[in-house]
């Protein structure tokens, strides 16, 4: 069983919590403090966003965070070196989420080696569908890193079965037909997507995009194993609040 799957399975009766934060957000100086707070306050897995200039799967909050991080000089190279320096200090599992081009420019095999050495256990690449993923997946797998599958409302059972043959760690179920950070109630189709995914995948399911509190999810007729929250956390931090207080509110919800 992949280490990320173990992290989620270990939570048993509660949702595993997966916060997302853009590397270098809100500033390069205070980013690691946010990560440490998330780790200390119940994050089971932390997704760190690798900033990219043209994030087509993201809404305005994550895009703005990426733009600011880039303006602060954040890069994949820098992130990996800072991560490496903190390798054994985090309890949570560690996943990098980023678009294909920065990984490609770094070099896929070189990235897989350096990321594994820095303690990275998984990668989410939103612009890498099944048809394009093989080379990167194999490079990551050779280093024990899982390439996390994304599926959504319009992913047919047939396509899910394609992904199921290669999925490791967990599957990221996109709750809405849209980008990250939407607000409001979850569509009924989110539960249908979870039900379809549950039939097909053996690895745990994480639900994400537009989540603000666990109570939104608890009301669903089909439950995921983990919940991902990104834009809501970034908004909370950007308003001057702490990552710790977000985790406390989120969990208490």
């Amino acid at each position: 069983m992949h280490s990320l799957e173990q992290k989620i399975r270990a939570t048993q009766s509660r949702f595993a919590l997966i916060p997302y934060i853009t590397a270098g957000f809100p500033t390069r100086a205070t980013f690691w403090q946010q990560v440490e707070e998330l780790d200390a306050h119940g994050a089971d897995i932390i997704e760190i966003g690798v900033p990219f200039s043209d994030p087509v799967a993201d809404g305005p909050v994550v895009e703005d965070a990426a733009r600011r991080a880039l303006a602060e000089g954040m890069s994949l190279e820098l992130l990996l070196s800072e991560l490496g320096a903190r390798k054994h200090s985090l309890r949570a599992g560690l996943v990098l989420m980023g678009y294909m081009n920065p990984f490609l420019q770094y070099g896929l095999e070189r990235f897989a080696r350096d990321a594994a050495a820095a303690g990275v256990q998984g990668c989410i690449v939103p612009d890498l569908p099944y048809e394009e993923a093989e080379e990167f997946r194999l490079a990551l797998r050779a280093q024990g890193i899982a390439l996390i599958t994304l599926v959504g409302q319009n992913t047919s059972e047939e396509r899910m079965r394609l992904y199921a043959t290669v999925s490791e760690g967990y599957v990221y179920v996109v709750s809405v037909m849209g980008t990250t950070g939407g607000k409001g109630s979850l569509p009924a189709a989110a539960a249908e997507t979870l039900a379809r995914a549950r039939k097909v995948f053996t690895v745990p399911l994480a639900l994400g995009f537009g989540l603000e509190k666990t109570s939104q999810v608890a009301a669903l007729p089909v439950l995921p194993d983990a919940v991902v929250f990104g834009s809501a956390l970034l908004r909370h931090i950007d308003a001057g609040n702490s990552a710790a207080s977000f985790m406390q509110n989120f969990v208490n919800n």
Partner: protein
Amino acid sequence: MKKGYFGDFGGCFVPELLMPPLLEVEEAMQKIMPTAQFRAELDDLLHSYAGRETPLTLCPNLSQKLGFTLRLKREDLLHTGAHKINNTLGQALLAKYMGKSALVAETGAGQHGVATAAAAARLGLQCTIFMGADDVTRQASNVCRMRLLGAKVHPVHSGTRTLKDAINEALRFWIRSQESTHYCFGTAAGPHPFPTLVREFQSVLGQETRKQMLAATGRLPDAVVAAVGGGSNAIGMFAPFIHDPEVRLVGVEAAGTGEAGCYNSAPLNLGTDGVLHGNFTKLLQTADGQIEPSHSVSAGLDYPGVGPEHAYLHATGRAEYGMANDAQALNAFQVLCHTEGILPALESSHALAYVLEHPQAFPAGGEVVVNLSGRGDKDMDIVRHALSLEDL
């Protein structure tokens, strides 16, 4: 070759949520486009609505100066003022056959937006256009035209506030609206199958050129020359000549202001391999893979990437790609106005500029065709400002 690839270039690097609609477009290309009914309906629209076929115009005055015969493929004479309408009528009709009720499109200079809005109005489809906020300001008259044609125009304020950001936003909109909406992509770039789809609809201009050359001269041209931004007018010109090795295919990228290290729009000449907007191609980017801003006096060439088939033709050497800078394009613009009485778009002026700057690159007494992809009426403000012709 792997599906959706031209050699190493191309592919389909998009969020999983966009795979079903892209597969749907691919299926429609295979099942609908080849049918006699679709062909006939599109041919009629191209002929009786858009104004095809366009002339291949001999330029007697310039030919005499250059020492070879220069002909222009007159896409500037088409409805809405550029070759863009070839593609938008094709995609709008395809969308209708697919049962879609709306189109979404990006636009840079506004030409593709206007052509999409016109096609949508003609075929009874809703139309949403995303346009960089800076382009909305630069190209105000085209925004007005789109709105008059019934399109909703959304300025995009993120990123560099130009074409690449408009594409990001149109892709995001398409994720939400895919059930009712077809993404009418404007150039031969983007994720598979758009590079192939747009080439198929633009090839009509190259096919006509081939036929017209044979009729006028009994031979094929020594070279065909076209401006390359995303590359749709160029691939439309090149495609019907690809298997004629005696015909040189010459693409012309925008070199920007022209000094070393300046912002430009010449990824084939000055860029490196990478992924943007769904395809692996040549890009203007930093060493760690962030996309760099582009620049050209011609808004239609102002894009940091290029269609993957051009990256392939560049890599194999089948096509050659030169550059022309802002000043050279503005000069060519004026030359064509004065010598032949034709007012070209600044995009097309880049193609002409390359020929004027490098006449020795073409055979004396030979036959050269430049694709005049659009007319320059839209560029009056830019030209007046750039040439300080305040009294115009």
